[in-house]
């Protein structure tokens, strides 16, 4: 069966049903247009790629401890980024690290019971969207909550916990329940639901703004699920100690599994963040925020964070990889910055070195994981380019580094 469909790298769904006739959501269409060529720059001047590579190597050679961050690319790019980080004694972090580590901290504290997209599509009769409207994943409803299921027609109940005003009205219409609740109180709500589930009384008064009867009604709906799914998008849980809210949601799902079936679905995986975490985990044991030190990989999930490292002077050079979305520019910093970016990336404050790179899944083939971390899909080259892939640019820098050492 010949494959005329291609996979989209531009969000964590990695839709694999796109074709010339069906080019995907607006985001996919927009990001699929990228120049086939670009201009490398060093200290503001146009240079050829070789000179830019040499300038990048010079910065890394002069650095005591670089930060290799951004990491928006495909698996082959991630492998090359980790190779270079290892050889330069760098720390690695992803541009979506804030959200990723709300999940990882909760995960490493207690684990969870989770599921994947095709299970959701075929089984989920109750879907809770906690603190998210899922619009960061434009085709989530179409792809994962389509009505047809191999186990017969599913009448899904979608429960929205959060600011329902952000929810598209056409979605809300089909929603069983929309409970306005501040994201910061999701943890409190889940703790109360767990207490009620265990048969304990919850102190009189409201919990997370909900009356006791409302709480019990919600719990009854959750318990009636044949296969319930609790989804959140950690990137949108932007408040202090959000990992504790994630933990509370995971614990609620675990408790619901004592008698029924439930699973968590952490939405995410955009900008290649699932692949970055997967590759780093199999190569080092840790899901990013690893520093390569003389004694071996050193994991610091809190302090190896891009913003903190740059602010505290914990690193003295930044290599920023952003090959998927030109809007994802490097953070402001005073240390020298090397950017491997899409050719259409523009800067207010140009980095010391800019090397335009090919877009994975558009200009070159590769591999990318979907948000669930299970399915890794093949990316294909859809248009020709003269640009190097991230892995090629990084290999060139590494070669330049070892040549200078020899």
């Amino acid at each position, binding site marked *: *069966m010949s*494959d005329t*469909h291609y*996979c989209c790298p531009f969000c964590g769904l990695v839709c*694999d*049903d796109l074709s010339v006739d069906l080019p995907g959501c607006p985001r996919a269409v927009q990001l699929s247009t990228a120049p086939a060529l670009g201009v490398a720059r060093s200290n503001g001047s146009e240079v050829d790629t070789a000179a830019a590579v040499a300038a990048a190597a010079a910065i890394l050679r002069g650095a005591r401890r670089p930060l290799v961050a951004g990491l928006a690319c495909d698996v*082959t790019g991630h*492998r090359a980024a980790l190779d270079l980080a*290892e050889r330069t004694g760098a720390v690695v972090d992803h541009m979506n690290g804030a959200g990723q580590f709300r999940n990882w901290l909760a*995960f*490493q504290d*207690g*684990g*969870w*019971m*989770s*599921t*994947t*997209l*095709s*299970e959701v*599509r*075929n*089984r989920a009769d109750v879907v809770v969207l906690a603190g998210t409207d899922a619009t960061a994943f434009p085709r989530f409803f179409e*792809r*994962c909550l389509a009505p047809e*299921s*191999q*186990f017969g027609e599913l009448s899904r109940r979608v429960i929205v916990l959060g600011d329902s005003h952000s929810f598209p009205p056409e979605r809300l219409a089909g929603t069983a329940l929309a409970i306005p609740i501040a994201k910061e109180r999701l943890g409190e709500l889940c703790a109360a639901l767990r207490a009620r589930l265990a048969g304990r009384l919850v102190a009189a008064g409201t919990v997370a703004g909900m009356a006791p009867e409302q709480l019990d009604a919600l719990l009854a709906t959750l318990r009636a699920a*044949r*296969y319930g799914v609790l989804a959140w998008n950690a990137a949108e849980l932007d408040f202090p100690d959000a990992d504790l809210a994630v933990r509370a949601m995971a614990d609620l799902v675990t408790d619901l*599994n004592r008698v*029924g*079936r439930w*699973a968590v679905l952490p939405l995410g995986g955009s900008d290649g963040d699932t692949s970055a*975490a*997967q*590759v780093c*985990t*199999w*190569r*080092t*044991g*840790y*899901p990013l925020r690893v520093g*390569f030190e*003389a*004694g*071996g*990989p050193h*994991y610091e*999930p809190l302090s190896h964070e891009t913003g903190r490292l740059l602010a505290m002077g914990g690193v003295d050079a930044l290599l920023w990889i952003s090959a998927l979305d030109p809007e994802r520019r490097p953070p402001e910093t005073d240390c020298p910055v090397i950017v491997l970016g899409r050719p259409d990336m523009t800067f207010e404050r140009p980095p010391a070195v800019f090397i335009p790179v090919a877009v994975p899944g558009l200009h070159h083939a590769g*591999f990318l*994981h979907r948000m669930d*971390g*299970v*399915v*890794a*899909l*093949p990316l294909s080259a859809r248009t020709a380019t003269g640009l190097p892939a991230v892995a090629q640019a990084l290999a060139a820098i590494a070669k330049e580094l070892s040549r200078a050492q020899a």
Partner: protein
Amino acid sequence: MLRLKNGRLYDPARGVDGLVQDLYVDAGRVVPAPGPEVRIDAELDLAGKVVMAGAIDLHTHIGGGKMNIARALLPEDHRGDRVPASDLGAGGFMHAGCGHAAPSTWTTGYRYAEMGYTACFEPAMLPANARHAHLEMGDIPMVDKGAYAMLGSDDFFLRLLAAGADPRLIADYVGWTLDASQAMAIKVVNPGGISAFKFNTRALALDEAHPYYGVTPRQVIGALARAVHDLGLAHPLHVHASNLGVPGNADTTLATMAAAEGLPIHLTHIQFHSYGTEGERRFSSEAERIADAINRQGNVSADVGQILFGQTVTASGDTMGQHRNHRHASPDKWVVMDIECDAGCGVVPFRYKDKNFVNALQWAIGLELFLRVTDPWRIFLTTDHPNGAPFTSYPHLIRLLMDRDFRNAKLDEIHPEAAAHSQLRGLTREYSLYEIAVMTRAAPARSLGLAERGHLGPGAAADIVVYRDDADREAMFGKPEYVFKDGELVVRDGRVVKVVNGALHAVKPEYDKGIERPLNDYFDRYMTVKMAHLKIADDEVCACGASKLVPHACTRHSS
């Protein structure tokens, strides 16, 4: 040409038991003794040394989604075994990583090679996760690799079975799965049970109907064993039986053997499936009954899944079993995942304690099985890494098998009632070097159909291990003097001296590609992935990281 002179060879595939003989290696192969006109470029005098083929692990969870979940879950375990990078100059670069229970891919490859292993097989690759598994295995250096595709709880198969599909159609689907996922064999885990768990069923006995499909685990085993046989695979259906770890499961295990109806069947980590319910604690050894059954039935092989004491992590496709076991999690965190209408996985960290009655008896049951199964060609040395213990404990395990005094000394240390319950002390058998070479080399190669591995005859790939003949077998097997991979010296005195990459082995069965029509339709209607994108093309295998793809042809039998 390289001459390995005067070594004492243990090469059971040719019946060679401690014969002093020279070996010649050229272009990565063992070659016949050359004539005098051929120049010998290098020579090693191995007088007094023990020489075997490279060891082959046919059941070790080295790569794939569940291992990455285990790694991500256990930063505290990695911290105790940090592995720095090491530049070997002309020998290449050894990457940093981590060791112990869920080692990084790099460290996995280095440490296997440093124990004299040259091929490892990941036994639980989910077809939905296959590309990820190949990417992970692509970063495991030093050893050849392969993987078994998991079937039996995937909805497409269960639909076929429930609809009473023709065995030929089922064989086509199994053949397609092997081909699409670049697999070496078929494994079934808790037959039908992973699917049943998604329907909120918490236990599924061998003859119990699946809550949705109505088929029984026995039917699942029968259909898959038939398909594997008809496709002409070398390795039998690889079965993780129902009721893992449940006291009294020995009856299920015996019935599972019977479910193959005389066709070849491999029962994995059989230690976890050899439990009775005798005694005050309602937990006892059924090792004797299980071993007798294996001894009697030539179509049955098994690997042990020995447990050894200490911290580890259990990783399994058996969501039903792992959810049941989560209350034993230590540290108290665990993961259960339903996966893609395909299968699932469960990860539960575990600490086996020698002073715990159940753990101590599990240890003794595993050893009893090793010692009671008389034919080393049908029982394989595994700890079900990392489920019973990390693979790095193999040298210790080999000493337990080869050294009765050592074994009895260890028996004195375990929970006294467990020691008293066990008949282990009465078992005087000590494995010989020849038998160790059978169970870790010749037999796994034969079971997997690796004609060029696991032996030292002319034409074999020159995967060769040289040991000092040390009475302390743990020291001996933990630190080979030389390891050659495809003719290259890669390990010296138990340390990697040259980094190499390994090949990927996969079977290429014959099947009717017409199966893609209903499959494509099924994926388009119900899945969030297209059938075409689940398939891993031959040229992707190297892009994933393997040095090359080694295809193994199969001859289809008609049923």
